[in-house]
């Protein structure tokens, strides 16, 4: 049975498509350069500056487009890192009984019990400021959540008899993960990937808003909110536009993830 996509999901796909185009083609699409001054500060929207200008007179629309690849690339690589790290250790912990699995569990418990934002602030203010460190910190902190999902999936699948058959045959843990467990865990992990990606976008934006993320002159959506936040006092809504972009991105990814989950639920019950 094929269900029609809801209008909201269609809009989500469209918005993600636009963000993707902006991320790939920023230099060609953006009407103005990233630091180009096109008018006075906080001008209202006009033909020259579609969303108005920012605090020092740069085109907000262009800066939003320039910020898209930065936000997307960092969020994506941080999420990938989180999945490589948390996914692999989670699978190992879920499948290996005894001390080793227990050790991984407790280590993850320790990491997960630290408040993410505070750990990130501490780490980022001590470590040198560059993109790699930023990706590594976000990835590490997110990986603790991925660990839990992946561990639960592995433990559930590990109890299945086809895994027992593989153990009885004498297969090693790596083969069991690759051939027996991973193919069955893929759909829920993909859905989790979407969710984690959304949270990585928000996390990065939060860090940039606090001044610990992307450093000028580079720009991302979170730093755009920060630069323009003072306008709110003078009822200039410039900060709301990048804020809305972040919110839309998060909602869109969530809708698409829901759709994926629905599909995987349908194939599961069809078994």
């Amino acid at each position, binding site marked *: *049975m094929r269900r029609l996509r809801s209008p909201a999901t269609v809009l989500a796909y469209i918005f993600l498509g636009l963000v993707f185009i902006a991320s790939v083609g920023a230099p060609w699409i953006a009407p103005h350069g990233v630091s180009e001054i096109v008018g006075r500060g906080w001008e209202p929207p006009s033909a020259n500056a579609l969303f108005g200008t920012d605090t020092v007179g740069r085109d907000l629309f262009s800066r939003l487009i320039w910020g898209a690849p930065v936000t997307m690339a960092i969020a994506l690589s941080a999420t990938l890192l989180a999945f490589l790290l948390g996914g692999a250790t989670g699978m190992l912990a879920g499948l290996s009984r005894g001390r080793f699995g227990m050790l991984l569990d407790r280590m993850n418990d320790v990491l997960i019990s630290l408040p993410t934002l505070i750990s990130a602030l501490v780490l980022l203010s001590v470590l040198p400021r560059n993109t790699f460190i930023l990706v590594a910190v976000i990835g590490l902190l997110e990986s603790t959540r991925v660990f839990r999902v992946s561990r639960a999936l592995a433990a559930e699948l590990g109890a*299945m*008899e*086809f895994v*027992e*058959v593989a*153990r*009885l*045959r*004498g*297969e090693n843990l790596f083969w069991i993960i690759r*051939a*027996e467990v991973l*193919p*069955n865990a893929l759909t829920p992990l993909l859905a989790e990937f979407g969710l984690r990606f959304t949270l990585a976008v928000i996390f990065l934006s939060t860090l940039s808003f606090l001044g610990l993320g992307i450093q000028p002159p580079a720009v991302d959506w979170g730093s755009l909110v920060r630069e323009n936040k003072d306008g709110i006092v003078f009822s200039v809504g410039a900060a709301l536009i990048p804020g809305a972009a972040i919110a839309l991105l998060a909602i869109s990814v969530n809708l698409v993830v829901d759709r994926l989950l629905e599909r995987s639920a349908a194939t599961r019950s*069809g*078994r």
Partner: protein
Amino acid sequence: MNDAPLLDIRALSITARSASGPIRLIDDVSLTLARGQVLGLIGESGAGKSTIGFAALGYLRPGLQVTGGEVRIDGRDILALSAQDRSRLRGARLAYVAQSATAAFNPAHRLGDQVVEAALAFNRLDRSKAKKRARDLFAMLELPSPNTFGERFPHQVSGGQLQRAMIAMAMCTDPELIVFDEPTTALDVTTQDEVLKAIRNVIAASGAGALYISHDLAVVARVADEILVLRHGRAVEHGATRAVIDTPREAYTKALLDVARRGGSRSPEAGSTPSLLSIEGITAAYRHGGTILHDVSLSLPEARTLAVVGESGSGKSTLGRVVNGLLPPQAGTVSFQGRTLAASLDKRSRNDRREIQTIHQSPDAALNPRQTVGSILVRPLGFYFGMTGKRKQARINELLTQVELDPALAKRYPAELSGGQKQRVCIARALAAEPRLIICDEPTSALDPLVADGILRLLRELQESRGLSYLFITHDIATVRAFAHEVAVMHLGRVVRQGTVAKALSPPFDDYTGRLLAAVPTLDNVS
């Protein structure tokens, strides 16, 4: 009062919508049921038993549609009622008992509150009267300390007790029609016996009519006055229980009866072949639990079948896990072909692992849903024998042919196979390793009787042609009689009786074996 029968189903047809057009599930089935009567609906899975049971309650599963006929309760067509009237009728006068009691109870609430819930809502009983009625029912169903039984939570009672509590829940509204949908299928024989007795007693006491749905003819024969045999949604045969069993008219009914009767044991020759597997003084426990096996010793001769029989919790599956190395025992040894095997799987050689294979109860869980039949079978060939390319392909065809499957199935996924086909794939996977011993852990209990019979026949042929030995774990005495050479009866982790099937399963019995055998429903001990 009118004289219309309690339940009157006339020429009922039900179809299911599907991508490839409507599928007819129920085709022109008629039946009537009077008060105080029990009608057994019997057939294999997919025969439409449950669909009819639900229709009698005026319920259709999503996607189903009545395309003809009617369902009358006391002369009123229940399918034509408004949703509200129907729900009132159901709540007060109809009841349903499902297969799995664990799914029917909310684990967070006490049993007593859940049992009286419907009675409070539909019969307008006040709480103390409803509770009193529940206590009476608990007593009638022979539940322990009926006055306080309702205070317990679902996890605090055994499976058989929970099943009886569900019957109490159904009976609490004092219904006139009860549909039992395989209420004892998930239970082991001794528990099943208690529950069947309880069902008969409460039906007799209440004067309600009942539909009893089961795939097990012997079970139905014990409770039903009449039997209706269904196949592919059609009524095959209908008559009084005794008549259907003694003089079946249809070939299909005869086939079902043959499977249920399957009495004659195998040739009693034993002890003539040397011992292949011998287990000495095994004591085993799981890490977080008491001792499961106490000083168990057994031996299995070459090319023979040793059945290990007992109710759930007797430790028979644990014994299988000790033999295949999944659970290293705390004491005792397992010897195979005269050598002592390493206790833990990690220390056993590849060859030892190859020669002892395991077939599980549920082929659904034992086959990876993301691998094709071909890739499931290919792995042991490459792993144990290093086979490649054409030889591998030829061997897969050979294996599938051996288990009587079409080699073309190699491209299919497990979800595209029937239960019996899946179990055959599991057997083929075990054969791919060219084992000497196969541990069969209830390999037929998840299958329909005719399909199960086919699997047992296949296993027997393989034993004769390749000299395989089986350690056959089961709770089904009929299977033991038909299939095994030797038997060990287990109770609470100890072997209470062992020997050849002919000797061990005939009197004089020890207490437990006697009880176990008496609990088995057969077509001969129908009251």
